[in-house]
């Protein structure tokens, strides 16, 4: 081999490359760099043996340590569950009232309930549980089927008008208009009566006639003064909250051809611990009742 040209200043060999009179030094790699490089090569060899590395047709070589990212996740989840074992066991065994009276357990249940709510319930009730037209607001103190922990829990378990579940909350209001039970002017009168009992502006003469229609057709479910009946799911008509709107047009439309919301029974979809946490979360939103009125 012909000895390569050496640079006078540095004593370094030349590569032999030359561009417009500029010659390239063949400067050796810094030693620290070279050793770091060797170390990474050795590390890589070890890594390829220990961890999944080479792609195969349906997967990859598993590696000696048997590591998978899915396994890592499962392990983490398992650890989290183990850390919460005490709370989980208590929530499973204790009654809802007992859970609520334990501050630490309450906090855990509310947090867990909130997480489950956002996944399962927010689609209809909204992420803040404020509901919307036709979807009940869970923050307020107006309950169709009752606002105690047990009542909320039951509603969650069996759903509303969910026919697949035999214990579902069931109520049906006749279509007073489309089925021809009431005449249009009667509907108008009874609407005025509802406006009156819910504290809104009303026509006195019309409402007076409507009171008679109300007593004959509506009282059995909605109560004498419109206070509702939670056993039958009869909504309170005398308060400031109306599920399908409280203005005259909305009320009249609901009497003529009522809409009925459906909520699935969650007992077949979620485990009871989650349902209990959901009940406690919903109860904590500001309208929860401690005893049925």
């Amino acid at each position, binding site marked *: 081999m012909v000895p390569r040209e050496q640079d006078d200043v540095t004593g370094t060999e030349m590569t032999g490359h030359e561009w417009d009179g500029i010659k390239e030094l063949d400067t050796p790699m810094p030693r620290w760099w070279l050793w770091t490089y060797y170390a990474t090569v050795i590390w890589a060899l070890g890594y390829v043996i220990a961890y999944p590395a080479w792609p195969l047709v349906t997967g990859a070589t598993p590696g000696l340590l048997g590591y998978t990212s899915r396994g890592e996740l499962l392990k983490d989840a398992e650890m989290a569950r183990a850390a919460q074992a005490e709370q989980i066991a208590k929530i499973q065994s204790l009654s809802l009232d007992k859970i609520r009276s334990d501050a630490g357990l309450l906090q855990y249940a509310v947090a867990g309930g909130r997480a489950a709510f956002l996944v399962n319930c927010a689609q209809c009730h909204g992420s803040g549980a404020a509901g919307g037209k036709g979807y009940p607001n869970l923050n307020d*103190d107006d309950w169709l089927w009752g606002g105690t922990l047990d009542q909320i829990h039951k509603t969650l378990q069996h759903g509303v008008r969910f026919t697949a579940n035999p214990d579902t909350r069931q109520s049906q209001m006749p279509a007073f208009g489309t089925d021809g039970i009431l005449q249009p002017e009667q509907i108008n009168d009874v609407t005025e009566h509802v406006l009156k009992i819910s504290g809104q502006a009303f026509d006195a003469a019309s409402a007076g006639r409507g009171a008679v229609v109300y007593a004959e057709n509506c009282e059995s479910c909605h109560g004498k003064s419109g206070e509702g009946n939670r056993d039958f799911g009869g909504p309170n008509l005398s308060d400031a909250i109306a599920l399908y709107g409280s203005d005259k047009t909305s009320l009249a439309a609901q009497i003529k051809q009522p809409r009925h919301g459906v909520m699935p029974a969650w007992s077949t979809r979620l485990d009871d611990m989650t349902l209990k946490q959901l009940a406690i979360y919903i109860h904590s939103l500001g309208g929860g009742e401690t005893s049925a009125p």
Partner: protein
Amino acid sequence: MVQIINTVETIDAVPHNSAARRSLYAARVKIHPKRGAGTFRNLKWLVMIVTLGIYYITPWLRWDRGDYAPDQAVLIDLANRRFYFFFIEIWPQEFYYIAGLLIMAGIGLFLVTSTIGRAWCGYTCPQTVWTDLFLVVERWVEGDRNARIKLDAARWSLGKLWKRVVKNVAWLVIAVATGGAWIFYFADAPTLAQQFITFQAPAVAYFTVAILTGATFIFAGYLREQVCTYMCPWPRIQAAMLDEDSLVVTYSDWRGEPRSRHRKKTDLSGGKAGDCVDCNACVAVCPAGIDIRDGQQLECITCALCIDACDSVMEIIGKPKGLISYSTLKTYNAQKAGIPVAIGWRSFLRPRTFVYTSIWAAVGLVMLFTLLQRDRLELSVQNDRNPQFVTLSDGSIRNGFTIKILNMEQRPRSFSLTLSGLRNATMAMVGIDESPANGLEISVDADELRAIKVYVTLDQHSVSGEIMPFSFNVLEQTAVGTPEARSTSAIFHAPKKEQLP
């Protein structure tokens, strides 16, 4: 006279790191600094004792803070996010005090550098202090400069191996103690020490000690002046801070040159000889491996050991001390021109140092003032956004607020929470006292934040708009002196007028 001059030993020392000799293409040549003695060496011993003493002892100082806070005088409690410094406790949101201290440290460094040069590098920098300490060990085990050079060149023998082992083990012990002391700033020192020894301490403690041990061992034992020359940004920055009035280690070449090893002979032959006898004592003691007679250079950390070395030689040959001395460029130029000027404190008085001092003091005073004035009570209010408001069955409107009260004192306190600017509103504490009230009583533990959910309810006839500004007020009920009070504005959201029940 001849006798006296002959007692000055000429040392065969080479300034390997001087600009003329140093090559980026060559491997580093190890520096073997000779033991120094003299005024500045003594000063450096003193600074070393003080700085190491502060570093090792500080975490063990106790400070009584009562039942509700740790009794360690200086503690960075990362887990609980508190910083304790004697009588001062800092919460994370008061981090600007730390920022202020860093600004003061920066400006202080400018001030020091512009007056007394790279004093930080030469005396107090940990790299310098620990390198000095490691050199003490090295000298103790292997002997002074010549013995060490000889040992390095010698072939491996049992004796050499033994010395190397003893030296490295001693270094390692110091390094472990260095890393070990660091972790005590972050936890209760006696507890952590016990845990550390019994292997009960958290893994992060061992990691930290391992990293700092490794860094100390390698930096002070093997890298030494390379850290200052190649790794550290300070020399570059500090070099830019120097001006003609800054004190730097200066060789008075107007007095020393032409240097001569045979002064007597030169004198006799009628030649002119300077005071420098070219004994290389200044080169031999230099830990940076340079020759100060080449003038100011980046590698010089101004440790002043060459001043001591030269002064002792001047004493022997009966010449005035100060051939190498702390001097300013201005003084040097004047003296070179033959104008007799002495270094005085007046060189410190100039616009630049005045500006630095003013900024430094201003930052300090502002911090001190805010520290004395700061509140130990904070109130923050967060409006529920989803939903913004809830219509209740009786038509009234309800808003939810998360109220956070920070009791930053080391005792439990009780506060009243009231509303102002919202007529007829009532409050209820969710989960605590849900009966509507006009004011609430809230107790907060010592040094704690308490968050409570409050519902504010307003009847629909009192709603005057979609957005109603009002404020929450807290007033201390358990005050020792003047009760602390805080007020925070909030907004009550209501539906549009036509959507009101």
